[in-house]
């Protein structure tokens, strides 16, 4: 139905009308150096006036151009599929590095935050990898991942791949040379975000809330500080990216409000997994998975008691934050600061 409609639109409507409904067609034309073909005719007729040589260089003829424009439009107008509705993720245990069975399994509901702890090299990343590729007892760990309590067949596994999981890590940088505004616009365009303006505004405000130091929309993303970049990436992942699962690899010391950041992501009904050594982050999670010798060794639910000690950790953290602020604004860090502090 939809397919037929697109064809008849391309056949009957003048190009400028098509462009009004689907501005993205301009990108298609630009990809083939066809920006200048007449817009007051339907696509095929307009093509008649295009330079034959261009079509030849790209190895296409007029009919196959119509087909590619059609599949192009279909790709970029199709509704997002069932992906958006991941309500739970289940990790069924496999083996540790000594081939002993993992005794634990874990079911995570959307909106839940899970932290993953364990010594460096113990297998935290391996677990994140298994989730990313939706392991079906076919990775070295033998784990099996269920989505919404169901096994994933090969076909949908390939379909889903890459869209299920968003990743954030300490060593990520911006490489494109754009301002914050342009960057958000570009991402919104590629996500085909409806109401892009509102979402962009939300991302921007939220990123500024998270970042220690404020930045403007005209700042180049490459000129943002580490903390500001992280803040923008997190806000962007929360509001713009539609991957229902977010894997976070170490965001401590990023110069942002870590807890607020994680909660922001979870509030948007995402499943959050944080691999961390940071007590504040680990205890902010609902549960934490302890990894030992390559296997899930223990799952600790954050108890009330632990949540209470979270307050003390937060105090320590605030002191750190305060000291950092003092440094930033040119104060001296002297002993009398500590005398006035009560750490308990």
């Amino acid at each position, binding site marked *: 139905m939809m397919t037929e409609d697109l064809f008849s639109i391309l056949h009957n409507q003048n190009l400028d009308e098509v462009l009004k409904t689907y501005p993205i067609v301009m*990108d*298609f034309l*630009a*990809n083939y150096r066809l920006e200048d073909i007449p817009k007051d005719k339907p696509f095929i007729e307009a093509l008649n006036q295009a330079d034959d040589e261009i079509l030849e260089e*790209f*190895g296409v003829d007029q009919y196959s151009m119509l087909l*590619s424009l059609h*599949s*192009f439009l*279909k*790709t*970029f107008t199709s509704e997002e599929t069932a992906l958006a509705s991941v309500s739970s993720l289940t990790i069924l245990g496999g083996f540790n590095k000594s081939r002993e069975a993992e005794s634990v399994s874990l079911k995570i509901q959307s909106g839940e935050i899970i932290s993953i702890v364990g010594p460096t090299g113990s297998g935290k*990343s391996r677990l994140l*990898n298994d989730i*990313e*590729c939706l392991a079906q007892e*076919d*990775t070295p760990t033998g784990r099996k991942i269920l989505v919404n309590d169901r096994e994933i067949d*090969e076909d949908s*596994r*390939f379909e889903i*791949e*890459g869209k299920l999981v*968003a*990743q*954030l*890590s300490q*060593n*990520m*940088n*911006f*490489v*494109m040379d754009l301002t914050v505004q342009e*960057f958000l616009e*570009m*991402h919104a*365009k*590629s*996500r085909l975000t409806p109401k892009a303006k509102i979402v962009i505004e939300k991302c921007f405000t939220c990123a500024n809330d998270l970042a220690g130091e404020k930045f403007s929309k005209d700042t180049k993303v490459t000129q943002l500080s580490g903390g500001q*970049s992280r803040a923008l*990436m997190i806000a*962007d*992942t929360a509001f*713009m*990216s539609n*991957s229902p699962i977010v894997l976070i690899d170490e965001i401590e010391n990023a110069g942002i409000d870590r807890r607020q950041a994680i909660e922001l992501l979870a509030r948007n009904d995402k499943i959050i997994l944080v691999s961390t050594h940071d007590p504040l982050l680990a205890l902010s999670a609902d549960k934490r998975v302890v990894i030992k010798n390559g296997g899930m060794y223990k799952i600790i639910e954050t108890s009330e008691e632990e949540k209470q000690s979270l307050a003390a950790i937060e105090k320590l953290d605030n002191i750190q934050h305060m000291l950092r602020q003092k440094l930033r604004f040119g104060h001296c860090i002297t002993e009398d600061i500590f005398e006035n502090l009560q750490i308990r």
Partner: protein
Amino acid sequence: MKLITVAGPPSSGKTSVIIRLIECMDMPKSSIGVVKFDCLTSFDNLRYNEANIPNETGFSGKICPDHFFVSNIEDAVQWGIESNFEMLITESAGLCNRCSPYINGILSICVIDNLSGINTPRKIGPMLKFADIVVVTKGDIVSQAEREVFTFNIKQVNTSAKVIFVNGITGQGSFLLTKYLKQTQDIVTLKDMKLKFTTPAAVCSYCTGETKIGDLYQMGMMKKMEFNKL
């Protein structure tokens, strides 16, 4: 024997991806071979040797790399069969964006990296457009947003491609790629099979060693730029 063709711009991570892939294939090392098509020099053979992967390198030298590929690919396949490989992977550096060493019915993989610029996918052309799978490397050092925009730009050029992010250092992502490789058909020869795209036309005087500049020396297939009067 299965044949896989891998292409991509220089330094995009083709060799790393192939090595990770072979590690991940769960097959005896001597059963997968690599043929590298390069232009002038290459050091990739050292890396393949180090990983105990049987390999052969060919240099196109003054011949168009695409033409060089086509005229040697069948020999490469026969070498692979004689060497009792179960799988042969060819690696070629696409030197101009025009190159696309892909064959109909043979799994073609294009490797590009996330650092190469956000619009690069839209500029690469046939090498990207005709690939079955597009492997994106170096994604671990850019933001999620940039990965998504990059994927979007790939989809603009190749709507049907599977886009897979592979970390060439840790191998993350290569597992899924192996699944595709295992699905490919076995072949005994490429004879009578067809390229997915024509190779660059190149029959002019400069192909045959002319170096002097000027109308007088230009003969054969030519394409002239148009310069508009300002």
